C-alpha cells in the first residue's frame, strides 16, 4: 500500500483533516505524511485501529528544529524591456521554517507494512509549541515524546507524564534547537583548533587570559 492510498483512505474516514505528502528526493524515496495538529489524534487513532493498514507499532519518534530562514530562488519571468518581450531572471525571496516538527515512524507488524512517516508541525518556535501527544495511542512514544520535550521544547498535550528525561528538572534551555548557546566552559583546550579555538580565545579574553 503506497502513501497516496493511505492518504485517500484517511481522508475518507477522518472528515476535515488536512494531509500533505512531503516528498523525499533521496534514492530511498521515503515520502512522509504531514498531518494538521487539530486532526492528528483522530488520524493516528484511525491508523492504529483500522482493519487495513493496521499500524500497531510506533518504532521511533523524533524532533526537528526548523528555524526561520530566508530562501532566495531565481524565477524566470517575461518582462517588456524597451518594447521587446524578454526573459529576465528575478530573485524571489521566500521565508521557510520557523516551526518545530515531530516525526513518527509507524509499522504494521500484523500486515508487514511500513514505515509510515508521520509528521506534525508546531505553529512557531516560541509560544505555539503545543502538539497532541500520541502516547495514548502508541505507548512506546511515551519516553520518546519526553525526550523531544526535553531537547526541543515541544509541549505534548495529553501526555501522561511530561517531564524532562535526560537533562535535570531545573534546566531551562532546549539543547537540540539550532539557536541553543551552550555554557561557556572553555577554560582549557589542549588541542584547540578552528571553532573551538575561537571560543577558547573568546573565553580567555573574558577571564583576563593567561
Amino acid at each position, binding site marked *: 500500500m503506497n502513501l497516496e492510498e493511505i492518504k485517500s483512505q484517511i481522508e475518507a474516514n477522518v472528515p476535515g483533516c488536512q494531509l500533505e505528502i512531503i516528498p523525499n528526493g533521496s534514492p530511498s524515496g521515503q515520502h512522509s505524511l504531514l498531518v494538521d495538529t487539530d486532526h492528528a489524534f483522530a488520524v493516528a487513532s484511525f491508523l492504529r485501529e483500522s482493519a487495513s493498514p493496521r499500524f500497531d507499532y510506533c518504532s521511533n519518534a523524533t524532533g526537528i528544529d526548523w528555524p526561520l530562514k530566508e530562501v532566495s530562488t531565481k524565477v524566470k519571468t517575461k518582462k517588456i524591456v524597451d518594447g521587446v518581450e524578454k526573459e529576465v531572471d528575478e530573485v524571489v525571496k521566500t521565508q521557510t521554517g520557523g516551526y518545530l516538527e515531530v516525526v513518527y515512524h509507524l509499522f504494521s507488524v500484523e500486515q508487514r507494512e511500513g514505515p509510515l512517516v508521520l509528521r506534525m508541525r508546531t505553529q512557531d518556535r516560541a509560544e505555539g509549541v503545543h502538539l497532541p501527544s500520541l502516547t495514548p495511542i502508541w505507548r512506546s512514544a511515551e519516553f520518546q515524546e519526553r525526550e523531544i520535550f526535553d531537547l526541543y521544547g515541544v509541549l505534548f498535550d495529553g501526555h501522561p507524564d511530561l517531564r524532562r528525561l535526560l537533562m535535570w528538572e*531545573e*534546566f531551562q534551555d532546549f539543547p537540540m534547537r539550532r539557536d541553543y548557546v551552550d555554557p561557556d*566552559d572553555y577554560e582549557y583546550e589542549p588541542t584547540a583548533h578552528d571553532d573551538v579555538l575561537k571560543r577558547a*580565545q573568546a573565553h580567555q579574553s573574558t577571564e583576563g587570559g593567561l
Partner: protein
Amino acid sequence: MDEQLKSELRRQGVVATSLQELYNWGRKSSLWPLNFGLACCAIEMIATTMARYDLARFGAEVFRPSPRQADLMIVAGTVTKKMAPQVVRLYNQMPEPKYVISMGACAISGGPFKQGYNVLKGIDRYIPVDVYIPGCPPRPEALIDAFMMLQKKIDEQYLTGPNRPRHLNAEMASEFIVPEFGAHDLVPTKNVGVWEVPLVNISLAGKNESGRD
C-alpha cells in the same frame, strides 16, 4: 635506617621497620575501591577484577557497595552533568584517607563528548584526582598500572611534616563543594580550590606553535 643493614638484619630473622613504613604498607596493600561504574570503562574495571587480570593480587579485590567502607574511588566512565553532584557526594561520604583514579578519556576531560552540552569536562573540576589513566577505554593492564602507581604514591607519603597527606592535616578540607543544578549549567562550574586551568597559552595556538609556554 640503612637499607643494607636492614636486609642484613632480615637475613638474621630480625625485621626492622619504621611506623611510617608499616602504616603506608598497610594502607597501600588493602585499597578497597568503591563499587560503581558510569560507562564502558566500568566493563574494563570489572574485567580487571576477574580471574584473567586478578586485581586481588594488589589487595583491591573487595569492591565495597558503600562509600563508608571504601578507600578508593575509580571514576570509570563518562560523568554527565546530571551525575556529577552524585559522584562528588559519594566522594564526600568516603572516610579519609581516600584516593581517586580518573579512568578513561571521559573522566579526564570529557573525552569525545567534550564539546557537548551535557558532559562534565573532567571530574578533576570538583574532586582531587591522584592518578589519571588515558584510553578509551583503558586496558585492564592500564588500570593495574594505575593501582601500582597509586600504591607507590601512598608508600612515599610522610606521617608528619608539612608534606603530610590531607587526612593527617586537620586544616585541610576533606569535603568538597557539591555542585547544584542551575538553569543553564552546574553551579559552580568548577571548584576553584581543586582545579586550576592548566598552563596552555591559547593565544599561541593555531599559529603553528605548540601553544605551551
